[in-house]
């Protein structure tokens, strides 16, 4: 994508000019506010509600970090960033961190000089078709018309997949998800492809949801995660361990509701370290020892965040799948707190 080369060079220019400032952690503490780059509107992940307050799965990461660093999950200023401005916005210091469903890739990690601190959602690109097309596998899509958002990595993945399987397709270019959904429903294309989480959310809102199937093939890896500027490792650690605190909390059965009770009774040294009852974990990253406790109290553990925003109890209804704990056969695996 030529665009990414252009923005990449902008980012590089920024790194040369911009990073000389003080550490981000000190900036955030001095400001008393975390500036978090988010998606201006992605169902379940980040969007302002009717009162203008940002809500969602990615937003919860911002809140957790704010609670850990500043002690108050509400002290976040959300800066909506578009696909074009997100990485430059981070590099130029417009935002302190990015929690904007961005895929962790080699070139973004190296060339764009981002540091992806963790993966908060494992996504992948899938296909959605109407049942009466009579297709049960993406391998049978030879000759299909496919609605595809232009200028995204999904477009490249689609081309790769069809080439690798020696199939032909006709792309129907759409500008954004709402147009894709509208075209697909109007029958302008046989299949609609985007991230599987997006497909599930779209399907949930379709009038004929029973007639729509999401094909089993996932054709790409999309590890989405929060990112910070490369070169400020301490701040990266703060964001990384604020997030992993949520994951570890779920693994050890610590929830928002039972946290105080667990803290009072537990003998498990790992949980005691997580909640700041033992050791001096916080001091090692420039915070106090209860940072993880505050993060969990603010948004709940990873599983609670998932269920509240995108899980099966919401109308989006995503299953945990790859995002289950490693103990449940998923990929969520917090390194030990020690």
């Amino acid at each position, binding site marked *: 994508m030529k665009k990414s080369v252009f923005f990449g060079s*902008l980012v590089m*220019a920024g790194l040369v000019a911009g990073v000389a400032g003080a550490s981000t952690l000190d900036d955030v503490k001095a400001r008393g506010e975390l500036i978090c780059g988010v998606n201006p509107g992605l169902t379940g992940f980040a969007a302002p509600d009717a*009162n203008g307050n940002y809500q969602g799965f990615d937003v919860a990461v911002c809140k957790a970090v704010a609670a850990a660093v500043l002690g108050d999950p509400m002290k976040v200023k959300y800066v909506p960033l578009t696909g074009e401005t997100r990485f430059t916005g981070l590099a*130029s210091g417009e935002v302190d961190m990015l929690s904007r469903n961005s895929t962790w890739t080699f070139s973004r990690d190296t060339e764009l000089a981002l540091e992806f601190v963790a993966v908060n959602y494992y996504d992948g690109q899938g296909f959605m078709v109407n049942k009466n097309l009579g297709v049960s596998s993406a391998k049978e899509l030879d000759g299909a018309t496919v609605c595809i958002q232009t200028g995204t990595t999904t477009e490249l993945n689609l081309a790769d997949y069809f080439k690798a399987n020696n199939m032909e397709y006709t792309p129907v270019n759409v500008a954004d998800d*709402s147009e894709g959904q509208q075209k697909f429903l109007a029958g302008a294309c046989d299949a609609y492809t985007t991230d599987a989480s997006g497909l599930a959310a779209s399907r949930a809102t379709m009038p004929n949801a029973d007639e729509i199937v999401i094909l089993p093939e996932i054709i790409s890896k999309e590890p989405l995660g929060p990112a910070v500027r490369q070169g400020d490792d301490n701040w990266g650690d703060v964001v990384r361990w604020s997030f992993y605190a949520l994951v570890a909390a779920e693994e050890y059965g610590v929830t928002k509701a039972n946290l105080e009770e667990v803290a009072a009774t537990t003998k498990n040294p790992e949980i005691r370290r997580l909640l700041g009852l033992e050791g001096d974990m916080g001091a090692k990253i420039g915070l106090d020892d209860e940072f993880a406790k505050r993060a969990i109290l603010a948004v709940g553990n990873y599983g609670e965040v998932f269920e509240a925003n995108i899980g099966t109890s919401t109308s989006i209804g995503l299953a945990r799948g790859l995002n289950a704990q490693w103990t449940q056969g998923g990929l969520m695996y917090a390194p030990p707190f020690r």
Partner: protein
Amino acid sequence: MSNTSFVRKDMLPPAPPPVSQTGAVKWLRENLFAGPLNSALTVLGFGFAIWLIQAATPWLLHSVWVADSQNECRAIVQERWGPDATGACWAIIRARWHQFLFGFYPIDEYWRLFVTFAGLLLAILPVLATSLPRKLLWGSVLYPLVAFWLLWGGSVWGPILTLAGFALWAGVFLALQVRLGVVVAAGVGLVAASVFWIYAVEPIETGLQSVLPLALPEVDSDQFGGFLLALVIGVTAIVISLPLGILLALGRQSDMLIVKSLSVGFIEFIRGVPLITLLFTASLLLQYFLPSDTKFDLILRVVILVTFFSAAYIAEVIRGGLAALPRGQYEAADALGLDYWQAQRLIIMPQALKISIPGIVSTFIGLFKDTTLVAFVGLMDPLKGISTAVRADIAWKGIYWEPYIFVAVIFFIFNFSMSRYSMYLERKLKRDHR
């Protein structure tokens, strides 16, 4: 004598014109079926119109206004008009209209927006209608500071001291104008005012605020959105770009080398670059050149660059007006003994601006619509920014036409009024040379 040839004594009554030359038939023949091509186009056009109406009418007739989600809308439509019926779901507008209009402005503070908007109407009245007393124009001049204070809130002393800076500028200008000339006096005044704004305003403001605290709750720029944002950017850019454009057009015509080359350079550079590039510059590049702890307001950055953009176009439109003036007008002004600024003010500009009205207004209409481009730098414009945010709510996900139609109708009202006003102005100012 009696055998004279026949002489008509009275006139024949006029015969009615042939059917093909009168009434509806004539109108139809002339306007719709004037030739084979015309007839074919008419049939096609009517066919298209009928198809459009046929497709859209049931959808519009089956509108649902009260529902909590798109699925509920669908259920209501199917219950009322059968399982295959489709209908517009205006409930999304009902639920989120305030975000389309005002973005995320705090609901408790909406009265400030209404006051600001009413003030805007009052402030442009004396500008638009010349029959009103000219003294009211001073109110229009003061309005921007009042509007700024109302919209962003904060201490009332900030705008008042800003105004004091302008007064200082005007005072210096008037005192020095005779001795140093217009340009130098204005320059010295600007330097004096800038020194005042940069070094004196903040301490004085803090002092006054502690003595007499008068303040509105502050509203952050990131809470601006929807048509509020479009109007803030559009109106500010329109108001500032017109005088700036006039100066640039005059600068381009100037004999002074530096003034001329600066004006030409500015105009050609800005016109040679797409607006979207300027917006990216505003949102991304400027931050690199500023210290990392300064937060230079994004809306302000965008307004400045949109103003530059529109000023460059306005300058060229006005240059067209200047070029259309006969040489004799300039010479007549010289012959009357007017100096440069008097000649511009009394003779050249009134005529040049009159000629340029259509061009100026289309530039403004274009500018107002271009404000939706700010979506690409993450501002919440009504068309894409707010629509995306609203559609991200699972209740309204997948809803497509309704937000677009709503936004389009409002844009149409604004732009159509501007266009009508410009036509009225042209008629009023017409001094026919034909």
